[in-house]
């Protein structure tokens, strides 16, 4: 619990930022706080109580989330339009920290109610952050949709929890085998609730509109954090449930998610919507790993989540750098980027290639792990669908890489603020690190 406590303290400091005299110190303090929070895991490692269980999964997923938020905090800190009178956007950072605390909790629960609380702690700040750009109608509409759909999804989750409680009489998953149908129905509804957060097909409708509406600074961080947290929660939840209950439905959802994500991504013009649909497709690939759950599937989900998060952060950082220099987030904004700023193009190409799954970038190993898992599970039909989806994915990813090299509209070079440069450099280092030492992330479990 130390990490949650540290994050809360940081959040409160953030909220009181205006009054406290720490104008320049806030960012380093936050980063230090994140580091301490991750260290916090080691002190009470592995703590299993009736309510929480901080074990290896929560430490790793938590670590990834802290890294994601760390980088996003840096880029947010450097983001121009938030600079009302050049003091940092304290409230936004505070909310981001609270959401991360929610994310950490989502992978460290054992009592179902705690999972619900974690989902809500993660979601409430996100509803607000999505709607934070009051002047843009799209931002308000995005937060409306996210709020409504989020509320309905948490109701569904709760109803599932209640049914599970009715069926088994306890809030701990896997404590007793849910013979009764009511218990299984509860499990299904709970999985549906979490899948909403992950952006799996029947519950994916919010993803494109929210990604497009939300301010780009938030979208990247939100996409990465929510997906990692959701799949962390799913691994914990699915790990302790019998496959027969949810096997068929999840496979159906996985296939639908992959195909729909890729098929719709091909037709998108706006950059953020395209990346939203590709996010959905990646959720589909990650879901494949749970059919059936084997010892490698946790490693695969973890590595896939980490590489996806890295890729998405990189991509959205580039988009918001482009938006900052006055370009609309459409595919044409990328034209001529190669001439305007090399490092940004390098980051863009590496991130998109990692999402496309081209060796030697981390995305490739993630894809490889998923494919090995599917081949080991002998779903040959599923294998062919996955390959077709990868091919369609390659098509629109390479279209994205195409544009920076085509003729540019505006010639003036893209300027970055100091902190944004720091963010870009950290992302590059992490990507190359994952290329050279995938071992570090893979051998954890």
């Amino acid at each position, binding site marked *: 619990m130390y990490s949650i406590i540290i994050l809360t303290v940081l959040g409160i400091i953030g909220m009181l930022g205006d009054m406290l005299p720490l104008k320049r110190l806030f960012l380093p303090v936050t980063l230090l706080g994140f580091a301490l929070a991750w260290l916090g895991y080691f002190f009470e490692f592995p703590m299993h109580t009736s309510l929480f269980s901080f074990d290896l999964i929560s430490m790793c997923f938590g670590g990834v989330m802290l890294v994601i938020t760390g980088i996003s905090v840096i880029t947010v800190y450097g983001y121009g339009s938030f600079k009302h009178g050049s003091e940092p956007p304290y409230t936004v950072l505070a909310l981001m920290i609270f959401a991360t605390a929610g994310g950490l909790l989502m992978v460290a629960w054992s009592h179902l109610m705690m999972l619900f609380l974690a989902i809500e702690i993660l979601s409430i700040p996100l509803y607000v952050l999505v709607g934070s750009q009051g002047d843009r109608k799209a931002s308000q*509409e995005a*937060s409306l949709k996210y709020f409504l759909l989020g509320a309905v999804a948490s109701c569904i989750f709760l109803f599932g929890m209640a049914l599970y*409680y009715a069926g088994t009489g306890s809030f701990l998953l896997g404590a007793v085998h849910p013979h009764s149908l009511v218990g299984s129905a509860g499990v299904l509804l709970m999985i549906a609730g979490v899948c909403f957060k992950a952006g799996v097909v029947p519950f994916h409708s919010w993803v494109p509109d929210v990604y497009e509406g939300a301010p780009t600074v938030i979208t990247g961080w939100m996409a990465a954090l929510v997906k990692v947290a959701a799949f962390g929660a799913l691994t914990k939840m699915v790990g302790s449930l019998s496959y027969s209950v949810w096997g068929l439905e999840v496979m159906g959802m996985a296939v639908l998610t992959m195909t729909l994500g890729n098929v719709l991504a091909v037709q998108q013009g706006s950059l953020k919507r395209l990346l939203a649909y590709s996010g959905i497709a990646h959720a589909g690939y990650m879901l494949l790993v749970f059919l059936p759950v084997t010892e490698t599937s946790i490693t695969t989900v973890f590595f896939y989540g980490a590489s996806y998060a890295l890729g998405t952060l990189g991509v959205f950082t580039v988009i918001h750098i482009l938006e900052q220099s006055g370009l609309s987030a459409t595919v044409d904004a990328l034209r001529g980027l190669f001439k305007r700023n090399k490092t940004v193009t390098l980051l863009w190409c590496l991130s998109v290639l990692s999402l496309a799954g081209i060796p030697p970038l981390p995305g490739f190993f993630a894809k490889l792990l998923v494919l090995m898992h599917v081949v080991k599970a002998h779903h040959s039909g599923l294998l062919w669908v996955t390959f077709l989806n990868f091919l369609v994915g390659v098509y629109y990813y390479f279209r994205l890489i195409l544009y920076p090299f085509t003729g540019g509209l505006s010639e003036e070079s893209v300027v970055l603020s100091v902190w944004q440069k720091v963010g870009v450099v950290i992302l590059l280092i992490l990507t190359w690190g994952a290329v050279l030492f995938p071992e570090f992330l893979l051998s954890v479990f």
Partner: protein
Amino acid sequence: MTYLETIPSEWYLILSAIVFCIGLCGVLIRRNAMSVLMCIEMMLNAVMLLLVAFSGYYRDFSAQIAVFFIMIVAAAEVAVGLVIFSMMFKKTSSIDLDDWGHLKG
């Protein structure tokens, strides 16, 4: 014969299912954001009812604590929801969901 023996647990399950579905139906049918929010509240209450009923049956108070937390979350949600609706109203003086459908495709 305590009250609980007389009422079989299925009845409560059915009652809460009915109220849940009515809430869900309200969410789908109403065009006004406020009434959608109200229906969501109703769905939450259905769940709370179910939890309280079964906490009685299982003689286990942890469910009531869960209900307690649900209320807290519901309150926070309503607060955030109403702020979002108020800002929408300030912008376009209408919180009709069909008017707020511009992000599409």
